[in-house]
């Protein structure tokens, strides 16, 4: 009999196809794991509506769990995903990978959240674009080491 903990462990082994250092558990998109009458119930939520990784993630969960247990996998939209659900371990992994973890700051027009450079830790950085290489990232450059880098957008 597969336990809830074992299912969580298996889900930990599935990485986000676009940010392979993060597991889907680190990312906070697995909302519910439960086992009832021999069926595993897993609920996930998308980061962004158009996230193209969702279909791949669903297939990975299917192939990871169905050899062991019957699976009922569903998606929920509410409550909407927030970067507050990202694990601390996940944030460290992101930084080590060269992506600045989410930094909260004032939103709105012409405002720029100060994001430290993940490579040299300088806070002398500039926002290049609110929209980066994937829906969940904005694009920055460090004014000290000149390295361009992605910032995982704070999403609340």
């Amino acid at each position, binding site marked *: 009999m597969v336990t809830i903990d074992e299912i969580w462990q298996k889900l930990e082994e599935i990485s986000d196809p676009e940010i392979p250092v993060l597991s889907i558990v680190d990312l906070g998109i697995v909302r519910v794991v439960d086992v009832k009458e021999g069926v595993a119930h897993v609920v996930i939520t998308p980061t*962004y509506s158009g996230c*193209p990784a969702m279909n791949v993630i669903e297939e990975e969960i299917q192939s990871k769990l169905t050899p062991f247990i019957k699976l009922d996998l569903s998606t929920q*939209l509410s409550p*909407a*995903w927030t970067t507050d659900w990202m694990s601390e371990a996940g944030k460290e992994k992101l930084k080590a990978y060269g992506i600045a973890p989410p930094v909260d700051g004032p939103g709105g027009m012409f405002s720029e959240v100060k994001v430290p450079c993940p490579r040299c830790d300088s806070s002398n950085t500039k926002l290049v*674009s609110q*929209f*980066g290489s994937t829906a969940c990232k904005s694009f920055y450059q460090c004014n000290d080491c000149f390295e361009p880098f992605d910032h995982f957008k704070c999403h609340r």
Partner: protein
Amino acid sequence: MKNELIDYVLHLADTSLILGQRLGEWCGHAFVLEQDIAITNISLDLIGQSRSLYQYAAELLNDGRDEDALCMMRNEREFKNLLLVEIPNGDFAQTLARQFYFDVYHELQCQALLNSKDERLKAIAEKSLKEVRYHVTWSAEWVIRLGDGTQESHDRIQKSINEVWMWTEELMSTAPYEKELIEKGIAPDSSSFKIPWMNKVKEILKEATLTLPADETKQSGGKVGTHTEFLGYILADLQHIQRSYPGLKW
């Protein structure tokens, strides 16, 4: 009531899809790489939102059609998108004027749908709103940047702000299928957006040193399936592979 809800969900889905498709035409063509990426990110958000809505519409219809069939196999007159989103991209100024008018409306609509009695629409709106806030920030910033930029950029964005204006009245109009939904607290009354929409548009145009267009000719009809000549071409581009090879998969 169920048929009205289906029409309304399709109206929301079609509007997001067609604008997403239009913005996708910019892919590889924008004036700088960062803005090419910004425009296509917004496109992706909108297409993602339309998927959530088409999935819901497919469940309500329960006639064997899935989200792909609703997007790829319906004809022009069955589409209920706003006319605003089907007009051509034109130059960057025209794309931007269209986007700015839409984003201000879209944010108000998502906020209002948070109070919908329909749990599914409420959840989709809650998800979408976080994305739409980025869109409206982006488009409003660019209207200001161009308006308060050089003489050339000022003149071109003013021209587009004026030309696109005629398609904005429909945003605040109510289709017959919305009436009962408004009474039941499922859909917001679009006419209630008029004042906040106008206030925000005025505020941004003022900061951009631009003038509010004069009230002239207005055109509506998209919400009930009467479209401009442009929609057919968009659908031809969007649907032709699925029409030629039905059910084809990557």
